[in-house]
């Protein structure tokens, strides 16, 4: 591609710049307000002197903290369950043929392809028919349903890339199916499983639309924030939001670094 800047580049560059500002405006505003609180001075909007009060207050905010713990707990559980299920289902697909595995795969991908509102409502209705009260278990089920397709696909793609002769060689040398899985296949799946787990956790952490229908009295962070927001303005939220953004940025930074190292041929 060209090195000089063609008029096209100037135009698209401007658009990109404006878009960048618009996309990041909400995040920047939230971050700024977490340190410089907006106050009204003679009817006009002004900023207070910089302080970390909202962060301190956040640390003491039981409501939010409980929701964070719940979210982390559900996220971890959903990820672990999703890893086990996703891997088992991927192996089933790989080692069988015919209609059963196609049906299974179609059903696995359905929650991923359908709008989340449908998934949430369908599960809501199902839980009501089963007389299951909404709470952490129902949230967990919902998250697992959402997360399994991601893990399943990641694992299956990796398994398909493996040469079939690796498994054959292991069996040929006298190993059982379980030994083959444990000593040969699982090590090959390690990076795929880690990547899938990270993605699954991230998805579960932020999951809002399905969870809305499945929560009872206890809820995850997005749901708790949702109900708090309907009531009005809470300074602690700005602090929380800023922390989340910083965390996401830090992870993205690490991912970027890893990518750079991989591309320039340095071995870790």
């Amino acid at each position, binding site marked *: 591609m060209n090195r000089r800047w063609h008029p096209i580049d100037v135009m698209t560059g401007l658009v990109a710049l404006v878009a960048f500002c618009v996309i990041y405006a*909400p995040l920047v505003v939230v971050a700024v307000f977490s340190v410089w609180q907006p106050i009204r001075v003679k009817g006009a909007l002004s900023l207070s002197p910089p302080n970390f009060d909202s962060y301190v207050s956040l640390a003491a905010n039981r409501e939010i903290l409980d929701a964070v713990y719940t979210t982390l707990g559900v996220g971890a559980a959903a990820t672990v369950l999703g890893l086990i299920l996703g891997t088992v289902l991927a192996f089933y697909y790989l080692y069988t043929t015919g209609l059963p595995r196609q049906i299974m795969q179609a059903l696995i991908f359905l929650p991923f392809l359908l709008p989340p*509102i449908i998934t949430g409502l*369908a599960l809501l209705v199902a839980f009501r028919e089963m007389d299951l009260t909404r709470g952490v278990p129902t949230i967990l089920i919902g998250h697992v349903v959402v997360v399994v397709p991601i893990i399943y696909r990641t694992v299956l793609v990796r398994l398909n890339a493996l040469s079939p002769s690796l*498994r054959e060689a292991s069996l040929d040398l006298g190993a059982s199916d379980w030994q083959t899985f444990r000593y040969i296949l699982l090590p090959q799946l390690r990076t795929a499983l880690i990547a899938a787990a990270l993605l699954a956790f991230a998805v579960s952490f932020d999951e809002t639309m399905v969870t809305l229908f499945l929560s009872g009295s206890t809820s995850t962070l997005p749901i708790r924030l*949702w109900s708090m927001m309907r009531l009005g*303005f809470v300074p602690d939220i700005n602090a929380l939001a800023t922390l989340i953004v910083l965390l996401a940025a830090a992870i993205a930074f690490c991912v970027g670094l890893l990518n750079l190292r991989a591309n320039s041929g340095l071995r870790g």
Partner: protein
Amino acid sequence: MADNAAHSAVEVRGGARWRGLLAGIVCVGLPGLFVFAPLATFLLYSFWRNEDGQLVREFTLQNYRAFFGDATFLRVYIRTILLCLGATVLNLVVGYAIALFIARRDARVRFGLVLVFVLPLFTSYIIKIYAIRGILGHRGVLNELLLGAGLIDQPLTVLIFSQTAIFIGLVVLYLPFAVLPIYLSIERIPPNLAAASADLGGSTLDELRHIVLPLSIPGMILAGVFTFVMTFGDFVTPQMLGGIDGFTFGRIVYTQFGVALNWPLGAALAIILLITAVGVVFFATLAGRWSTTR
């Protein structure tokens, strides 16, 4: 998925056949129980009705008739489709510009630029809506800036709790989803095609018109379908930013399960939402095939 004939050639025999049956029951049964059964039940609900707050499990078409017969429902439905189409088109145009800009930069900065535009996806969805509400509000950041700069005398009210607010919210939230597929399809174009075009005397504009644009159509279709389906099914943004005037079709579905407590009607409306989404995907796939086989 790739053919796994080689993997499955290791055949099952004897006692292992029972293990295979058990595996089949578990592996097909679990998705069946947690995906198929709920969806099937949900479909059934759309054919039942509510009487005095009680669910009556008798087959009826009244919910669907309510949708097609009631002008309000239809109006909101059409309006939502137009709203989401608008957001999709805007996102496609802007997304394409961004993707093109990134694709034409040096290889070293490209990954970083993509990361910059994709990063917002990993921040909290609900917090972004909250922040947008704060910015667009009567006494929000945007209004205060405009007032302070003397550009307006009164705060703009149209920006919050309106269809406009929903539109802005959807665009800001879903733009990164549009950038990525378009960028990937542009990036996949072999660089020697550009070289060939230049070699044959083509200008940059020619190259863009005749090579980049046609070859990036699959990415555009993917981005368009993503954006439309996601915006059409989003009921949280309209709920937070729409106020009294801001009812989209998704939000109406949501309220049937909340305040209005008419689950069968909600189910029927949700099924219609689903069919709309599936229809869009279907036609987009057709369009995709048509564009590549010409």
